[in-house]
């Protein structure tokens, strides 16, 4: 995939210089953090729920073969069709073939990270099938030909004025000035799309093995319309979305809305079971597309396996000090924030996005916010090691420097000497009690953004010796 701005550092610089984006990010992440904080106080024991959800995910992922087989059996028993897709191209090809056979000219889409991941809209458009995103945020992004910047609110980087301009230009119905007018305009336009589309495509938040049910969580009602108005419903679902039993859902339905939007419950939660109403009428179809697209690669790596526990709530984005400053688009692909830095290099390749795990302070806020307690910092570290071990992240100068450090650290006298020399050198750079600029990279890379305090009094080693003498 060609990116307009292929380097993470450059993309981050662009984001930092964009004042509009900075304002939007601050408002969004502050608001979400506050709403989540308040929402989790409305359950008795948040930690118990997290640990239970983690246990369910761990159990399911470790027995993914069993639960997928069960899911498929149930869905087929309900009259649904199941298609296994190894790759994104397999998914697109299946849906395009289906559209051709059924004479589908236009498709309405619910927000789905799985279909974003495989760029399904592009494939459909290229095949001559009109595909319209119906979630308001996704609709805005599609009109602007951009990529989402947040898992939950895809157009969070845009202001209402920018959206008003966009609607005025693309929809040609005047300029909607208020948020309510933007919403009303989208409702009018998209209502016609729902009524004329022959196929609805969604993802799924959960797929229940025991019953073959697909569970969809939303606020707008566009997913209800996409699944219930057109006669053909296709759900594109990553293989990691399965959970064992219907009763396992309650934990997740408490965790997901509170973590994602800070709601106790979203406006709509739909439980769909295969093709609808076969008794009253024929012609309804349900297709479940189970997508691998790199997930089995993660599954095979025991250290990284838990990145498949993610329920895509976006909580780790909001609390991440890096995401808060650079936003979603700087991550270069559709999964931003800590979870993006973990799964993008695995779903794509280290070569494509192996720089992402380095964009983290490893503070652990993401792990604390995660509703399934995914150990994101440990996986970021592991991915850094992988990138460094491969030829991708490795820089010869850095390697040489690290070998030098290792040598010095193994020789106490040399270590003491180098410490003294560094103190002398550092004192030369002190201005007004702080080191504000260094002459050379990589030291200047640090001081470009932050000051270093001046070295204090005598060194620790010297003081330790003096203590012994007393």
């Amino acid at each position, binding site marked *: 995939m060609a990116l307009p701005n292929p380097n993470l550092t450059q993309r981050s610089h662009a984001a930092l210089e964009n004042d509009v984006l900075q304002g939007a990010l601050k408002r969004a992440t502050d608001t979400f953090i506050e709403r989540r904080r308040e929402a989790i106080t409305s359950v008795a024991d948040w930690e118990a729920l997290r640990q239970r959800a983690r246990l369910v995910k761990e*159990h399911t992922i470790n*027995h993914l073969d069993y639960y997928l087989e069960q899911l498929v059996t149930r869905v087929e028993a309900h009259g649904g069709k199941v*298609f296994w897709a190894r790759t994104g191209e397999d998914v697109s*090809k299946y849906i395009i073939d289906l559209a051709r056979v059924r004479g589908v000219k236009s498709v309405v889409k619910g927000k789905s990270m799985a279909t974003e991941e495989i760029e399904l809209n592009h494939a459909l458009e290229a095949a001559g099938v009109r595909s319209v995103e119906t979630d308001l945020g996704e609709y805005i992004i599609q009109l602007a030909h951009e990529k989402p910047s947040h898992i939950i609110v895809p157009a969070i980087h845009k202001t209402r004025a920018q959206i008003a301009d966009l609607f005025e230009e693309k929809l040609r119905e005047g300029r909607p000035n208020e*948020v309510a007018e933007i919403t009303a305009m989208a409702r009018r336009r998209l209502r016609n799309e729902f009524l004329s589309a022959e196929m609805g495509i969604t993802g799924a938040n959960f797929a229940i093995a*025991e019953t*073959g049910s697909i569970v969809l969580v939303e606020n707008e009602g566009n997913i209800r319309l996409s699944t219930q108005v057109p006669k053909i419903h296709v759900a594109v679902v990553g293989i990691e979305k399965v959970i064992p039993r219907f009763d396992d859902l309650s934990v997740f*339905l408490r965790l997901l809305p509170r973590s994602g939007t800070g709601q106790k419950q979203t*406006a709509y939660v739909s439980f769909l079971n295969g093709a609808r109403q076969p008794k009253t009428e024929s012609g309804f179809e349900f297709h479940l597309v189970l997508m691998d697209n790199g997930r089995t690669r993660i599954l095979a790596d025991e250290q990284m396996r838990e990145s498949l526990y993610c329920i895509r709530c976006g909580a780790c984005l909001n609390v991440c000090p890096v995401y808060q400053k650079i936003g979603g688009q700087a991550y270069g692909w559709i999964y931003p924030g800590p979870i993006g830095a973990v799964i993008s290099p695995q779903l794509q390749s280290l070569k494509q996005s192996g720089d992402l795990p380095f964009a983290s302070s490893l503070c652990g806020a993401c792990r604390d916010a995660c509703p399934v307690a995914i150990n994101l910092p440990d996986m970021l570290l592991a991915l850094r090691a992988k990138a460094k071990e491969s030829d991708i992240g490795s820089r010869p100068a850095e390697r040489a420097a690290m070998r030098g450090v290792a040598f010095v650290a193994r020789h106490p006298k040399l270590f003491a000497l180098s410490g003294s020399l560094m103190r002398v050198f550092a004192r030369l750079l002190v201005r007004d009690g702080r080191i504000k600029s260094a002459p050379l990279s990589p030291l200047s890379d640090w001081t470009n953004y932050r000051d270093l305090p001046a070295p204090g009094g005598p060194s620790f080693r010297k003081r330790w010796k003096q203590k012994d003498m007393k």
Partner: protein
Amino acid sequence: MSAITEASQSSVLDVVRRALGRRNTLSPAPLEPFVEPVIRIEVRELVERFIDEATAVRAQVRRVPDNHKLVEKIVEISAAQPGEVAMSGAELFREIDLPGELAAHGLSTFIANQPDHEQLVATLANCSVGVTAADFAIAETGTIVLSSDEPNALLVSLLPPVHIALVRSEQMIGTIDEAIRKTGGEKVGRTDPTRSVTMVTGPSRTSDVELVLSIGVHGPKELHVIILE
């Protein structure tokens, strides 16, 4: 459908098994159930909690003592709207002669029990009000639960801009945990595999533009819940 279909069918599961380090699928011992203690709360308290929660998410809730008042409320809400009033195929509406009462007040009605899907959708899209009877309601989140047991309730509650849902106070339950066990254990996917369920909490909403709450994106702009006590 094509050549890739056959090849992929077996291969994904094979790859999953290989990734898990085995050749054949392993049946796990099921996880111990995680059941939250059911707190027995009086119906009156559940109703009050429901009203608080539903109101907080901008549903409009009213309590009525009998069928007569119930019909009166539906007429009152419907009369404020310009167009036709749709209702699901619920028995209750025939019992209380809702179509007759609405007609008596000069309101035109549509009973959503016709089999043709396209026609049904087209008609409902032009109605102003949709009336349904909920299966039950969840107090802790102010949620009503609708299902396809009630003919076309899922579409009637979705396409018109105003949705009126009826629920009897004895249908009130406490928590989402109870609701899931009630929904899954008793019905979905077991006794009737084609049954669909939607939980509704407040009117349709979005915060996609600058995180400003906006009501009535694609689903109803107004949700009225009438509790029959």
